[in-house]
């Protein structure tokens, strides 16, 4: 059973220089309260692994603006001109990874595989400096696993075991990242008593979740 904690308490757990896996796709399905708490605490020198950096003022975009980040691993930064500026100025180091490769590299870390063998990126700039492995006469790029010190997960609903359900396109990277963080912090919209979520509805088993944020305040 897990006591739900406040976003500010969760942010206290994260040291400067950590690598964070952060769920979300253009801010949808991102852990917004955790991100705000990280900005408030002013954690520095962070590496963020995420699909994208959203846009200025939204989701991971706030981490870009705040100067918390020194490195980003993402598939797309095109809708955040600030990330591009900071990349060009050298303030942020950016590694661009094809989206399907990115999620699968994170999964490989989470499920204990030594990397992935993918056709994506063969014959492109992505290939540079990487091992090519031939299987049954076909070439594949060997892409290495991506681990996180923390995985910051947005979920639709949790129980106090930490079991998580996700909603619609807010799944995206969250269920995979929950496998690959040394410490996993989940930010659910609601939390229900243990036993309320059917075993068949659980997409992230609670044993993967280390900390649970208290439910979304209702604003009343």
């Amino acid at each position: 059973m897990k006591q739900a904690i406040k976003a500010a308490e969760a942010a206290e757990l994260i040291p400067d220089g950590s690598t964070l896996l952060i769920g979300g796709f253009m801010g949808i399905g991102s852990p917004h309260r955790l991100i705000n708490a990280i900005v408030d605490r002013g954690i520095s020198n962070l590496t963020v692994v995420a699909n994208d950096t959203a846009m200025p003022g939204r989701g991971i975009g706030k981490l870009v603006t705040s100067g918390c980040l020194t490195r980003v691993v993402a598939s797309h930064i095109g809708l955040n001109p600030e990330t591009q500026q900071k990349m060009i100025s050298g303030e942020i180091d950016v590694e661009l990874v094809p989206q399907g490769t990115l999620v699968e590299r994170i999964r490989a870390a989470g499920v204990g595989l030594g990397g992935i063998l993918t056709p994506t990126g063969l014959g492109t700039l992505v290939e540079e400096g990487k091992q090519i492995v031939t299987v049954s006469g076909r070439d594949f790029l060997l892409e290495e696993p991506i681990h996180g010190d923390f995985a910051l997960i947005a979920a639709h609903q949790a129980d106090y075991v930490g079991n998580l359900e996700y909603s619609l396109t807010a799944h995206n990277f969250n269920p995979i990242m929950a496998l690959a963080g040394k410490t996993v912090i989940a930010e659910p919209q609601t939390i229900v008593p243990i036993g309320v979520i059917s075993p068949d509805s659980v997409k992230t088993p609670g044993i993967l979740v280390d900390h649970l944020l208290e439910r979304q305040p209702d604003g009343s």
Partner: protein
Amino acid sequence: MEAKEIIARRVAQEIEPDTLVNLGIGLPSMVANYLPKEVHVFFQAENGVIGLGARPPEGMEDPDLTDAGGGFVTAVPGAASIDSAMSFGLIRGGHLDMTVLGGLQVDERGYLANWMIPGKMVPGMGGAMDLVAGAKHVIVAMVHTARGKPKILRECNLPLTARRRVSLIVTEMAVIEPTEDGLVLKEVGPGASVDDVISATEAKLIVQGDVPKMSLFSES
């Protein structure tokens, strides 16, 4: 008729019933508007839904349900939410019947460049490399020239998206099929002659007999 409408209408005719189709952001997303009513397909948004529906009425948006451009959408009956690993698993695994993507350049080998202009535009490849490497059919939907300059070249000078021959190129001037022997001119667009197409194209085009006019209205 505007160039983009011509392209979208023509691409719509390529879509087979009961298939899974991914439409890129921008021009490609217009293709859905011209699909004959009786052709039922499932649209995939790579951020995590199969069975993408139209934009919801104002006030009925779900913040957890968007397309890959971040715009609010609905889900059709029979839709499925999927995480990014499943989404790209379907793409890389050959389960996606067709992807329609924009292009910066295509060349005589049928190779596509559509994700970066070095030193100028480095948004990241997002899902494009997986889509081009994995989809059963890749259709490039783009205007024929950029500021008067050909986009269909002998050899791409921008970084490639994949080392894979795309299935079809559709512009407002032509339908072109990349083959082992080179680019075959299959149709010419409204108001264009074969010579017009050849002079707006840097790549060598293979012209076999009479080239039919592009038909822009489905026969059904």
